[in-house]
């Protein structure tokens, strides 16, 4: 089966980066890994490109994070000349970082499987794809997402309350 990789790339790259970002919490590393996943996909030419990309991305994030624990390193990032980065206001950036840290802490409160399912949905995968990716039954995805969303919101609220109480 012939895959139009330029279309897959256009439709999936941003989703993959978003998914990876919630795993490694570093935008540059998330992009490195997304690019690496695409290069491996081009090498293997799988029948189901999206499933392959997310599987490789999840494994890369896991390997990368484990390796990073032992030794920090940086991959060579392909610089995009076409898209120039906008200048971010430092105060906005700080606010964004704080919001991100709060969400990260809330996500940490979720069980591993709940978090995975939530992040895959947020990255644009549908129920069937998430089921294939996680090994869960399709019918279990709704229940898992329901629990994950509730816990995320509750954990975030609880953390905010705690921060407010601390002043």
């Amino acid at each position: 089966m012939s895959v139009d990789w330029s279309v897959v790339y256009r439709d999936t790259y941003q989703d993959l980066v978003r998914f990876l970002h919630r795993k490694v919490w570093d935008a540059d590393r998330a992009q490195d890994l997304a690019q690496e996943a695409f290069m491996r996909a081009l090498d293997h030419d799988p029948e189901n490109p999206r499933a392959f990309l997310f599987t490789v991305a999840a494994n890369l994030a896991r390997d990368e994070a484990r390796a990073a624990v032992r030794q920090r390193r940086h991959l060579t990032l392909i610089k995009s000349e076409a898209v120039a980065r906008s200048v971010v206001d430092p105060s906005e950036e700080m606010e964004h970082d704080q919001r991100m840290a709060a969400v990260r802490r809330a996500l940490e409160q979720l069980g591993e499987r709940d978090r995975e399912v939530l992040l895959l949905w947020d990255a644009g995968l549908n129920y069937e794809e998430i089921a294939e990716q996680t090994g869960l039954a399709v019918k279990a995805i709704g229940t898992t997402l329901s629990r994950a969303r509730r816990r995320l919101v509750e954990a975030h609220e609880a953390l905010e309350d705690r921060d407010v109480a601390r002043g």
Partner: protein
Amino acid sequence: MSHVDEGRLHEYVDRLERQADARIGGWADGEEIEAHLAECAECRERLEQVRTLKEQAAALLSAAAPVDVAMPQFAEIQARARTRQAPRRVFTVSRIAALSWAATVVLAVGVGWLARGSLSFQRPQVEDLHPVIPSVAEAPTDAPLVDAGTAEAASGHGTETDAAFSETEPRRGAEEATAQEAVPPVAAREGREPAAAPPAELQRTEPQVPTAANIAEREQPRAAKAETPEGIRARQAVIGAVVTADERRDVLGRGGVLTDSAANEMTHQVDDALLTKSWQAATASDAEQHLGGPLRTVEGLPIESIRLGDVGGQPAVTVVQILPGREQLEIVQWPLPDADRLGGQWLMAQAADVAVTRDGFILVLRAPLSVDSLRVLAARVSPPASP
């Protein structure tokens, strides 16, 4: 029809959201749910709550999205992928000739290795002269799963590591020479002409009980090479390729009932817990209180840190100890109510992880050492299992 449960309401809302998406196929339950919603005010109210919850969660996740994701041109990715593929596809005459030579050398080494194996049946003649020494085999494992060095050599991937291994040989040779001097050969005592010195491997005996220190020392050159992520990944890939499913089942069968997927799941659980959660520094007594049991460490190794957290919802502790080669040994431990039911000490051994049970606790040991060495270290974790 009874009320629609929350999971199905989430599925309904989710599928509606992406109905226009070509990837979403038809969903048979949709019509049934819509018919029920038309009649049930309670479910309609719950549907609104589900929508609100979904929006709140989506808003939170959006807040954690990376800003300014630069999307490189696809052509750049293609070019980079082609560059990486290219060397594998070019087979020139000189390359084939070089490979032939390499194959010859590998064959010669392999034959030598096998011959050494067959000669080793004569070992008792040498060993009879030495006191019986407890060895690695006294660890709770019966046989090594795989020797990473052997695996690397066999696969041809471990060129650098092999070089590192060879650095250990002179030291081993010196120990053997000393052992030979201390005990006269059989032929000399019996008045016969001494035979030619057997190969070094035949003379090898363990000079002492292996300790955590000398195991780590022996691993030093390899550990230093394995520091890079590429090295670790290559070693894991080689080990993964060499350890067959049957061999792994054999190891699992000896100690437990975990399947490969369950073992992998546990490894991933530990990964995620270590990498995504906040672990708090603590003292040993805090750790014991947190665990509700004894804190287990390898005796004789300095403790770098003790941190508290959880793995899969269970209170967990991770202890980092420093090996003589400055490599870190990490022991993640947590109570598992069914651990003892698993029936033994060894649950799994793979790549850079070894998991064992101790009186209702699971311990996962990680270090850039071979599985064999990790297993020996695991056997020296203190306090040991109660009889």
